[in-house]
Each structure stands twice: as structure tokens, then as C-alpha cells.
């Protein structure tokens, strides 16, 4: 069994001319963990990965693997291997030779046996003598994975490894990658722009934006308690409502939301000004016909359903509020009650432990998918 190693980045900065791709990044990835760097294209996640691999030199800062400072080491001397986005399989070599490449360069005598075992692990046994071009995308992906894993690197880097696969295959490979990671115990650092992929696989996610880490934590933690508008919008969907802070106690913050008071647990407040964005996930809101019994500590009344979309597992409502904003409300189709109809007057209820307060200085649209980002 391979030994994973810690990965430390200390004040790593990368500039291309005047463009700062990675800005003073400090990060520790504990050994054996599955770590995801998540962010939109151009956020610096791939550059970070390439600096770990040694394919880019940091402008400033240090990269350590285990206790070893590898900042000055050439790529071929680093105990890391990469699964490239394009796979970068050697087209003139067979699958066997591709997988054996790293072992042979290090002069491992027993490479035949190990290579055959690895090809079995990634279930490509019948294809060992073929060339990469004779394989499908999913098979090539597994060759790329096997070719990197066989070297038992301290850290395995994955650069959008599933990006070229179709959705169904991607789901399968996500589960497969997670299983292999648990089996081999190597530290995985996975770069992706797909938030669902990151949440499915990683123990820890660092959300990156403009070369910095916005927030780092377990997927559930990031999703349930985002600390910036970027994270709130990039990971899942959020309703962000402009509010004024009226009272702060030890356990709760009360805010005025266009004349109606609601409260948020103080551990979930990331704002310190007089104003704040009140954030609440659409599926955490319960909409009921106005005047019905309150379902949580908080209620905003005066809404009216303006759109009803049935999407199978859930029904998604748009609710127009008195101040003109439309809020999203998702409800599971449990069949417990009939769906609300268009035009119904509703009250929106939620629990104080589900909302969050974000800095009012931040852009409420940060991290939203623009049409050109959409796949």
C-alpha cells in the first residue's frame, strides 16, 4: 500500500506578466485525503496544480510534499504524478507501455508484473496491447489514471480528469475514483469546475476565485454555511436578500428584511457591517398558503407564487416578495400535499439554523453561472 504525503503550499503566488493567476496561496492538504480545488475557469486552480507538479515555477512561495521542499525540483524528480485533462497518453506506445512508463524510467525491475496488475485494477486487461487511439474516452481515462497510480506517488494530481466524458460515464467514474482513492490511500488533489463532482468525491473542498481561496471545508460545511456570496452562489443556489442588522446577541443576529424581522444563528453570520445579505437555500424554505401555521423560527409573509416548474423529484417555485424580489423555493415531491398553484398568496418559513449572513460589500451575483460558463 502506498503512503500518501501531506502537501503544503506556503504563500504561493504565480504571475503571468501583470496577471496574477494565483495570489499568495497557503494551503495544507493532509495525507491520504481527497482534496478538491473547485472554481470557475481562470480562477487559478490548474495553475496551482501545475506548480505542484513542477510544470510551472511559482513567482513566490514554497511547495512542500511531506517535509521536502520541492519548489526547485524539476517535475521528473517530484514524488507526484498527474492525470492530465487531455490524458496525454503516448500515442506511439501500447496501453501496457503507457502504464509501465513511469516504472521503467525509474528502473523498476519488476515492472511487468506491477503493470499487468495495474491494468487489471483499471479493468483494461484485454486492451493491454492496443494503442490509445483504439480505446474509447472512458478507457483512455482509466489508462491515464493507471499510468499515474502505478508509481504510488505521494500526491496524485487530477486536472479535470472527467471533463471529456459524457455525463453518465462521469458519474460512474466519480464513484470509481473515490473507491480507488480509498483503496490506495494516496493523497488526491483534484481540480474541477464541476461543484457536484467536487462534492461527490472530495473530503475537503477549497473554493477558488481570482487566484485566492474563498472558503475551505468539508462539502456539507461549505454548502450549509457558505461564508461569501461567491461560495453561496457557486455551490448550489442561494436566495440573497438585502437586510439591516438590528440586534446581535451571543447566539443570534436579528435582521430587518424590508420591514419583517428574522433571525440567524450567530455562528452562521459572516457579516460585521450594519447591512448584510441574508442567504437561504431554496430547498430550506417551506412555502405555505398565507396564514398557515409557522414551520420554523422565521417567516417572511406577503409572497405570491409567480412560477411553478415541475422537475420530477421536486417542484421549483418562484415567489414574488412585496419588495419586488423573486425568491426560489424547492419542494420535494413527497406527495404529502398538492403543489401550490400559480398566483397563490404564500408565507415563507425556515429555521434560524439554515440561513446565513454574508458581507453586504460583496457582489450578490458573484459566482453565478453566466451563459458562456454553462456547459
Amino acid at each position, binding site marked *: 500500500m502506498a503512503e500518501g504525503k501531506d502537501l503544503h503550499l506556503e504563500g504561493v503566488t504565480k504571475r503571468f506578466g501583470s496577471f496574477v493567476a494565483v495570489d499568495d496561496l497557503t494551503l495544507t492538504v493532509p495525507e491520504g485525503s481527497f482534496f478538491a480545488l473547485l472554481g470557475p475557469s481562470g480562477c487559478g486552480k490548474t495553475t496551482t496544480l501545475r506548480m505542484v507538479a513542477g*510544470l510551472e515555477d511559482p513567482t513566490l512561495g514554497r511547495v512542500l510534499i511531506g517535509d521536502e521542499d520541492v519548489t526547485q525540483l524539476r517535475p*521528473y524528480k517530484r514524488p507526484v504524478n498527474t492525470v492530465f485533462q487531455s490524458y496525454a497518453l503516448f500515442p506511439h506506445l501500447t496501453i501496457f507501455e503507457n502504464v509501465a512508463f513511469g516504472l521503467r524510467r525509474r528502473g523498476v525491475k519488476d515492472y511487468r508484473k506491477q503493470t499487468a496488475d495495474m491494468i487489471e485494477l483499471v479493468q483494461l486487461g484485454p486492451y493491454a496491447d492496443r494503442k490509445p487511439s483504439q480505446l474509447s474516452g472512458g*478507457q483512455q481515462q482509466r489508462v491515464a489514471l493507471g499510468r499515474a497510480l502505478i508509481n504510488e506517488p505521494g500526491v496524485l494530481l487530477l486536472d479535470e480528469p472527467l471533463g471529456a466524458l459524457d455525463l453518465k460515464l462521469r458519474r460512474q467514474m466519480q464513484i470509481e475514483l473515490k473507491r480507488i482513492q480509498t483503496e490506495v490511500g494516496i493523497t488526491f488533489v483534484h481540480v474541477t469546475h464541476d461543484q457536484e463532482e467536487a462534492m461527490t468525491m472530495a473530503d475537503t473542498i477549497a473554493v477558488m476565485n481570482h487566484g485566492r481561496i474563498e472558503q475551505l471545508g468539508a462539502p456539507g460545511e461549505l454548502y450549509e454555511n457558505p461564508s461569501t456570496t461567491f461560495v453561496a452562489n457557486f455551490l448550489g443556489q442561494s436566495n440573497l436578500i438585502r437586510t439591516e442588522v438590528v440586534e446581535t446577541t451571543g447566539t443570534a443576529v436579528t435582521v430587518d428584511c424590508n420591514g419583517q424581522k428574522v433571525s440567524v444563528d450567530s455562528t452562521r453570520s459572516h457579516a460585521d457591517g450594519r447591512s448584510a445579505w441574508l442567504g437561504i437555500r431554496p430547498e430550506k424554505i417551506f412555502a405555505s398558503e398565507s396564514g398557515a401555521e409557522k414551520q420554523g423560527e422565521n417567516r417572511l409573509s406577503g409572497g405570491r407564487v409567480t412560477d411553478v416548474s415541475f422537475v420530477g423529484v421536486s417542484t421549483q417555485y418562484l415567489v414574488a416578495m412585496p419588495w419586488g424580489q423573486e425568491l426560489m423555493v424547492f419542494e420535494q415531491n413527497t406527495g404529502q400535499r398538492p403543489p401550490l398553484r400559480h398566483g397563490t398568496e404564500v408565507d415563507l418559513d425556515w429555521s434560524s439554523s439554515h440561513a446565513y449572513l454574508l458581507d453586504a460589500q460583496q457582489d450578490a451575483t458573484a459566482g453565478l453561472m453566466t451563459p458562456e460558463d454553462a456547459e
Partner: protein
Amino acid sequence: MTARATTTDSDPVVDGETSKRRGRGWLLLVPGMLWLAAFFLFPTVQLFFTSLYDPSGSYEQGYAMTWQFSNYVDAVRDTWNLFARSFLYAGTATVICLALGYPLAYAIAFKAGRWKNVMLVLVIAPFFTSFLLRTLSWRTILSDQGPVTDVLQTIAILPEDGRLLATPVAVIAGLVYNFLPFMTLPLYASLDKVDHRLIEAAGDLYASPVRGFRRVTFPLSMPGVVSGTLLTFIPASGDYINAELLGTPNQYMVGNRIQSAFLTERNYPLAASLSLILMAIVVVMVVIYVRRAGTEELL
């Protein structure tokens, strides 16, 4: 793991429509085929018949067709040393061209950056002047009083009375000079196509730059190596200008003999049989070479 191939490799739909279209596609070959028939096939057949004429005929009186296969025996007997010299010179020139052209093509493909196009133009620039003129100017460069001879004599690589012109060195140097672009351009074309990410991947998999080059970059540039060496070796082995202008009859290659047989002696049967022998040997060598290089599919 249950992931299976999801791509459909081939589409077996061949209906009347597509086969009709495919039929029309062959029309595109017609002009090229006609050209080859008129300017390669016909002259080659003509050459073959000429090579079997009675050698006692002459240009003025005409030749009689006597199926004189002994022409070939005579040609080989009298000129085998010229063939040997041709292939030796052409082979040496090809090796030197590869040694000079590969680093040059590599630098243009990977290191030249925005100077890439300028450097490519410089490689081709000699073609703007006539082949003959450029070779003549090499006579000046390599002449006994020329700077190259002077320098080599001064640093005692060449003896005091040594010369460059009229030696095999001069002929091979001329061949190298004249055919270098034919080596460099195909090498550049295939090196330029090498995916830079593959070289990165080799480095990521513990290959030092030297080993990465040996295991990845060089094998991927083999199509360029093969076509470059062929484009150099084939014309160089039939060349006569360099031997004529930079050498003496002691450096003459088979091309010189063919040229004089055709144009001076007007011994057409001999010239034709020499040409065909040269062609046959080159074809056999090329086939063996391409097989050995394992690049049939890449050519």
C-alpha cells in the same frame, strides 16, 4: 468497474447515396493520375525499352530493338564503383543533414516562439537563388585561397598543401548544403505536431529531459525523420551537379555518368539502363528502410 466503450467506432450505413458520392470522389484523382501517366509512367516505359536497344546503334542512325539485356550487365560492370560512391556520398550527406537539421527543426518548433515564421523563411530562403549559382559560390568558399581552407590550414586541421575543393569533402558538403532544407522542413512539420503536453507527461512520469526526448519526442518525430532522410537521400544519390562543380572525375557519382552518357556520348541504352538500375536500387533501399523504421502507417 463497469464503464464500457460508449463510442460507436464505425457507422455501417452505406446506402446508395453515400456510395454514389464516394464514386464521384475518385474523380479528384484523375488529374494527378493523368499527370503521372504522362510524365512518369510513359517515360519510364520508354526508358525501359531504350535500355534494351542494341548499343551499337547511334543517335544519328537510330537504334534497333534487340532486347539487349546484356546492357545491364555491362552497365554494372563498368560503373559499380560509381554506384558505390553515390550511395556512400548520399548516405554520408543524409546523416550529416539529419545531424544538422534535427536540432534546427527542434529549435524552430519548440524554442523559436514568435521568430518561428522568420526562421522557416530563412530555411527556405536559399531556394530564391538558383541551385547552380549557389553551388558555384561554394567553389569560391572552398577554393584553395578561400577563407575556409585558410582557417583550416592555420589551425592545422588541413595540411599546408591540403585542399578542400576537388575532394570528397567538398562534394559531400555541397550535397549537405543543397539538401538541408529537404531534411529540415519535414522534421519541423512532424516536431511541430508533437503535443507539448506529452512531453510534460513524460517529465511527470520520471523521464529526465534527455530520456523524455528519447522515449517520446524522437519516436513521435519518426515520420519526419523518415520523410526527411528519403527526400535527402533519393535526390542526393542521383545528383551530379555537386560532383561536377565541386569535385573532379575522381569524385564523380553515377548521376555524372548518366548525364554524360545521355548528353555527351549519346549512348542512350547505357544511360537508360544506368537510370533504371539506380531507380531499382533506391526503391529496394527505401522499402527496406521504411520497414525497418516501422513507420509504414505513419508515412
